[in-house]
């Protein structure tokens, strides 16, 4: 259990950060690119050389640590700066292993984001990058949960970030994770075909053990490795029994449903384990699918405790402020996660 104090987010939706904006940004060519904003804190000569994941990570990270120095930096990213990776890879093949510049290589390592934040904020503390595909951000959360047990007075930056690159878009299309047909994000959740649409973004949080002035409390995190619906349902039930305060219930569940018809049975059976009056919210039609999209889901959940202005965009059919929100996500059916977050 730990508390969220400040948070930041870069996504495709202007409405997430601009209270005057109420419309949904539509996908283009089945992709939801994150808005290219908020890079003011990065010196222009540095910015020019950075890939999008590194830019988004630095911008969201520095935004939350600038007023509150932290004792460590814990990042989840499945792929980091993949666009730089493919640029370097293409150079290797096209120049037949000739004279190459190392910039793309150095930027392409997944730990470059946490490293850059540490350099720019002169942070010499704990620094780590979790890269375990769809559970990269969840492992970052488990890590800070342990860090705050070990060092109860500390503050940590924890976040998730991933980018759309030509590389992962092509590879994931070959693997069947993106839809073949053109579709708008407005309709993607109702789609009956396989695959989803691509997305990217970043969300960062400063967390500690202090309840006072906290925005939300992360009660527990659980990762599941299974394709068996019954196993997942059993683990989910045990999880809630253990971590949901007695006499309380989940009043909102945020589902990571992404329009891939193969995953519907997971989400439906999972939802059926919850009481019938549980409300549902969605976010992947706003963010697109990417490995650390649960970071944005956690950012949204944190904000839902104080405002209901995103309810309509998230298809939440109540204006009631929730007390306990459960996040359930699976992107490919073999890695699943549960995050329980409550109002303070």
């Amino acid at each position: 259990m730990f508390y969220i104090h400040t948070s930041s987010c870069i996504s495709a939706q202007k409405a997430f950060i601009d209270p005057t904006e109420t419309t949904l940004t539509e996908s283009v060519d089945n992709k939801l690119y994150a808005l290219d904003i908020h890079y003011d804190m990065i010196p222009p000569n540095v910015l020019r050389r950075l890939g999008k994941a590194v830019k988004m990570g630095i911008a969201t990270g520095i935004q939350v640590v600038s007023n509150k120095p932290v004792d460590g930096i814990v990042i989840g990213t499945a792929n980091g700066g993949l666009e730089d990776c493919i640029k370097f890879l293409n150079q290797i093949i096209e120049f037949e292993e000739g004279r190459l510049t190392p910039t793309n290589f150095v930027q392409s390592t997944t730990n470059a984001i946490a490293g850059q934040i540490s350099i720019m904020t002169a942070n010499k503390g704990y620094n780590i990058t979790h890269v375990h595909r769809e559970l990269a951000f969840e492992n970052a959360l488990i890590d800070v949960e342990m860090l705050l047990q070990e060092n109860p007075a500390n503050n940590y930056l924890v976040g998730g970030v991933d980018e759309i690159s030509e590389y992962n878009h092509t590879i994931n299309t070959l693997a069947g994770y993106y839809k073949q047909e053109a579709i708008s994000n407005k309709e993607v959740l109702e789609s009956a075909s396989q695959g989803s649409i691509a997305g990217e973004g970043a969300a960062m949080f400063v967390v500690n053990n202090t309840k006072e002035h906290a925005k939300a409390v992360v009660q527990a995190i659980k990762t599941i490795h299974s394709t068996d619906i019954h196993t997942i349902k059993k683990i989910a039930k045990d999880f809630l029994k253990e971590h949901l305060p007695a006499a309380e219930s989940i009043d909102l569940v945020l589902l990571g449903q992404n329009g891939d018809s193969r995953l519907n049975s997971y989400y439906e059976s999972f939802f059926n384990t919850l009481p019938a009056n549980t409300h549902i919210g969605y976010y992947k039609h706003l963010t697109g699918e990417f490995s650390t999209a649960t970071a944005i889901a956690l950012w949204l959940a944190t904000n839902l405790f104080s405002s209901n202005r995103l309810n309509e965009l998230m298809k939440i059919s109540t204006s009631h402020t929730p007390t306990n929100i459960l996040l359930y996500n699976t992107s490919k059916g073999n890695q699943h996660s549960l995050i329980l977050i409550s109002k303070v």
Partner: protein
Amino acid sequence: MSRIVVTGIGIISAIGDSTEKNRNALKNSFCGISSIDLFETKYAKLLPFGEIKIDNNTFRQLLNISSAGVTRTSMLAQHAFEQAIQDSNLTKEELATEDTALINGNTVGGMCLTDELYNDANKHSTDSPYVTSYDLGSVTIYLQELYNIQGVCNTINTACSSSANAIMYGARLLKQGKAKRAVVGGVDSLAKFTINGFNALHILSSQPCQPFDQNRTGLNLGEAAAFLVLEREEDCIDKKKYAVLSGYSNANDAFHASSLSDTGEGPYNAMKEALKIAHLNPSDISFINTHGTGTENNDLVEGTAMKRIFDQVPPFASSKSNTGHTLGAAGAIEAVYSILSIHHQELYPSLHFEHEIEDLKLRPLQAYIQCPVQHVMSNSFGFAGNCSSLIFSAL
């Protein structure tokens, strides 16, 4: 607080495909650095590497792999993982529970298939078995699915300190009761991608590397995998135990994306914090398995930081002179070597050393010796300033 003990080890590197072969090679100053024989790269015969001389087809037979899409990185990992779980007598039933964690450090993933990746990523292919095997998580997920591991599974990339952090993460899970046993380690295979990356940085030596030598000219890349089985001492009273994982740390140098600060803030803080966690004084350390890559920057900075910590620097060596720098696997294979030093009460020498670095005046151990070995420190420092130290102690 419970002590975290090592109950199983498994390793494969350029100096051997088993723990015993690695130990014998270290005792006999065997150098596994050679030209590349098993895949094509322009640098195969131009630069030396720590290549494991077992080809992928042989691995597939040895490991009984029938499915397509299993990369060399996954195969090296499986080889070391299976040795470790057998050594610790873990049953398939024990592995397939929520009590078992699997934490893997990795920087290359399936990118050892640089050409296949190029074709797949640039739409030159339509039917590739590897599309879900390129990312870093793929190796861990392969092992997790193979043994149906149900506890916390994680992949960590902190560059060359990845598997030191994997070991640390596993130990912390055990201490906090989030797992009952943790299989922890790391892997990387040689790849055109990393060869060209390190070559572009001008830090690959054309000779077998000379850690801590005044005339050192860079590192040799290698490939390897190693896993340890970690358990809480009270959970494995009747089991064979090699050593205690008594200290660990993670600190950032916060200086530069691909080189260390002159004063070695990251290395200094990593070593100091590991000593603190282990409740040890610097003078308690019997031996240091250094990061010792053989680059101009690393060896000078690491030596400087060692001199800041230790009034009298204990015996030290770099096994990268035997194996090459195995990146994501380095922390794990060097953990195995540190454990072997404690288990057999012996120290393994550094190779190819001739002249002290003038500013350091430090000489690595140059001959195999048997002596009391109580506490061994193992250093791993990576790009992006990621510095970690582990300390293993006699039981």
